């Protein structure tokens, strides 16, 4: 009984953490000024969603979520962003 309670509380804390991360970073995706930061926030959001899947006992979907959305889609979005024209923030004197 005791052990079950501790496990339940741990799960609740993890869920609170992961869902807060998901919400905060998904807001950051639409509010970020810098397009690269927006796409990086999107990647963090997707990783947090993978965390929710793992908490729901769907480990396979969680891992595939990271593999496809971070390793594939995330990298692809960053690649596409790098192809857009943008100035380095500090100008050209590096």
């Amino acid at each position, binding site marked *: 009984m005791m052990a079950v309670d501790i496990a339940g509380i741990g799960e609740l804390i993890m869920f609170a953490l992961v869902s807060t991360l998901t919400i905060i970073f998904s807001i950051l995706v639409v509010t970020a000024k810098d397009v690269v*930061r927006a796409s990086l926030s999107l990647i963090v959001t997707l990783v947090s969603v993978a965390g929710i899947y793992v908490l729901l006992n769907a480990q*396979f979907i969680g891992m595939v979520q990271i593999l496809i959305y*971070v*390793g594939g889609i*995330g*990298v692809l979005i960053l690649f596409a962003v790098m192809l857009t024209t943008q100035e380095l923030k500090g100008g050209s004197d590096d």
Partner: protein
Amino acid sequence: MNIVDIVYNPWFSGIVGLILIGIVFVCAILAVWLERKFGADIQSRIGPNRVGGRYGILQGIADAIKLFTKEDLIPAKADRLLFVIAPIIVLGSGFMMIVAIPFGAIVIGDNVYPIAATQMDISIIYLEAVSALSVIGIFMAAYGSNNKYSMIAAFRNMARMIGYEVPLGVCILGVAVMAQSLDIVEIAKAQSPLWFVFLQPLGFVIFFIAILADMGRLPFDQNEAEEELVAGWGTEYSGLRWGLGLFGEYIHMVLGACIMVLLYLGGWNLPKFLTGIFVLGSLMPIFWFVGKVIVIVLIIIMLRWALPRFRIDQVVDLGWKVLFPLSVLNLIWAVALSLAFDMFFGA
């Protein structure tokens, strides 16, 4: 309390994981030393020879102390947040890989106790997923530096990554089909009489090339390219942050060699006549595994000093036009072979 309870106790696994992280860190320091010494031998230089005796084996520790005491520089126009987090992500992805990799096993009779922090059903997918995180880390470092060279490095990093993640995944699929499991421990066990390198040699070659590119080792280190890009994503880094990134790369190299041994080179499985010996038969799988990992690390280091660097377009061409079709061919071959096995020898 019998041995199974101890092995599957979470506290025990946690302690094992911490010890493994320490061991892998020491191995990475040794790999840096080995690379310098080996490279020096190949180029007829002496290499490190002052710290720790004639062979300079403590050079890595001296270097680490030097990095600790250096000034912590962050460029004024850098994206501070990304700049600070990036090396942590590169190193963290290595640490997340350590969780699932079995570093050898203790074999008692028919029972195999893999030396790993966890044992998951899907560890090979987990490994591929978290190793992809380091690419994001390198990208963050390169973009956060706000430097033209680093920017080019970030671009190349992404292009190479897209080209090589696909053949790597398809090769792993071939292995999983043949072992009928996604658990890396089961995959290693499935190679008991015959290593997978003999059953799918094409897959091994593609996997080797793809994982070299994944680790960013020469001839695929276009995102570092000291001569053209001034160390690429690491141009603006110095001191401890640079050290973290460097250690992250070497940890990836050691872990990549481990994965290669587990997937294709038979893992810890000994020939049958050796497993019967009383204590030696239980402990020898570890040394057998470590020995194979050392050979692979030596080959990777040797390639770095023997081969020139490709241009980025050549590398992407190789990934998409050669390795990807061949890896699909290898997958078909693996499926056909395991079906044929089932038909002739299976139940």
